[in-house]
């Protein structure tokens, strides 16, 4: 009788422990399997994101190269031809047209130069970002649509930025100004460079109507273009209503830049 009793005890004991171990192992391997799959998916998503960013970078770089080529062609070919035409006109009698040809040609030359400079700012390579931005702001101020206030507390650091970063920042400021003029109904815009530790920070603010109240900050091609260019140079940015209730963006460049 004792033997039978012991057997039942051992059988129940082994069965209980055995099924517990099996169940615990099942849960352990299930969780491990799920985590491995999650890791693989995360790696795949990262790779896809990286590939997307590389494609975007390549598209932006080729866009810049194309802009530069068109800008140079306009400046060198069309601009030179117009200058020749102007010289030829100077040698002929313009009175027949009531002296209207020369101002017209001057106007075309100025327009072509402006388009050429906007497509590919030549000052960026020669004089740096500060000069190029100042030139851009002078043009806007001269047009009288908006008053731009530019401050550079970062000194020569912004001219030491690498070409890719400087061009991206120039395009971002260009796009921001364009947005302000088109949509914000602002009278003033404030552009400021300063340093925070080793990082360079650019703030842009206007006194216009600000972002839409629905909180959708990322509508339109212009904003997408800004985001894409900032991602390309790995800059952090934050958009918020500014002190003047208008639009405000703060862009922080990575510390190793420049």
């Amino acid at each position, binding site marked *: 009788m004792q033997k039978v*009793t*012991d057997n*039942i*005890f051992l*059988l*129940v*004991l082994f*069965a*209980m*422990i055995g*099924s*517990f171990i*099996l*169940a*615990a192992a*099942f*849960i352990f391997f*299930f*969780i491990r399997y*799920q*985590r491995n*799959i*999650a890791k693989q*998916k*995360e790696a795949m998503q990262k790779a896809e994101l990286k590939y997307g960013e590389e494609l975007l970078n390549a598209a932006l770089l080729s866009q810049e190269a194309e802009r530069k080529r068109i800008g140079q062609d306009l400046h060198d070919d069309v601009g030179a031809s117009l200058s020749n035409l102007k010289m030829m006109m100077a040698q002929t009698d313009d009175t027949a047209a009531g002296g209207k040809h020369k101002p017209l040609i001057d106007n075309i030359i100025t327009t072509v130069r402006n388009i050429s400079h906007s497509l590919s700012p030549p000052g960026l390579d020669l004089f740096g970002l500060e000069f190029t931005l100042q030139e851009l702001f002078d043009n806007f101020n001269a047009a009288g649509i908006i008053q731009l206030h530019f401050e550079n507390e970062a000194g020569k650091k912004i001219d030491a930025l690498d070409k890719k970063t400087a061009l991206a920042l120039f395009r971002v400021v260009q796009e921001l100004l364009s947005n302000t003029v088109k949509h914000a109904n602002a009278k003033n815009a404030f552009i400021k460079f300063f340093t925070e530790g080793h990082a360079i920070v650019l703030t842009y603010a206007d006194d216009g109507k600000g972002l839409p109240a629905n909180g959708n900050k990322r509508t339109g091609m212009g904003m997408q273009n800004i985001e894409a260019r900032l991602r390309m140079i790995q800059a952090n940015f934050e958009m918020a209503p500014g002190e003047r209730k208008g639009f405000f963006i703060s862009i922080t460049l990575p510390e190793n830049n420049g």
Partner: protein
Amino acid sequence: MTSKFFMSVLVPCSILLPIVIGLLKLQRLPVNAKIIWYYLIVSAVISAASIFMGRVLHSNNMPLVHLYTPIELALFCWFYTKTLWPQGNRFLSVWLPVLFTVLCIINALFFQSMYTYSSYTRSVEALICLILALNYFARMAAYDNEKKNTSTPGLYFNSGIFLYFSGGFMLFVFSNLIVNLPHHSYAVIFVIYAALVLCMYLLFAIAFLLCKK
């Protein structure tokens, strides 16, 4: 003495841990977590009544096991309905508990007296719960968010139920034979069973901590 303290004091009191954590977050608990919390309350009340009947009144507390079995299954069926079929599952939430209750009544009337352990119905209940727990794992494996899967409170609730019933199943099957064993053998098996219960309560406590509405 140590095993007696473990079985009679530590494990019964350990139910307070998930109950207190659940109570602190009761308003923010999702419906399925609230059902587990109700299960713990029912379990604690029946466990206290069982101790009172056994230790104080020195009477047979097996009728409470007969009463507890269909209630426990109904609560777990309700939990799995809310977790796996949020749109509702009439068979699992209504018909299965009703049929099982009828089975428990028939068992108590004709097969296993109210004053003996209801090993048949406890075993059937364990099998149903094991199938439901495996169903939960199968659905999680098919669900396309593996990262979320491993941190969801549902996984801990389900693991607690799965571990408890897989370990306890053999005990439920052979429980009426085990009572005839010498006291030391009987005690060893019930220490293991108490450890399973403790394990389930700890997993429930973790699940409540992870709960976010």
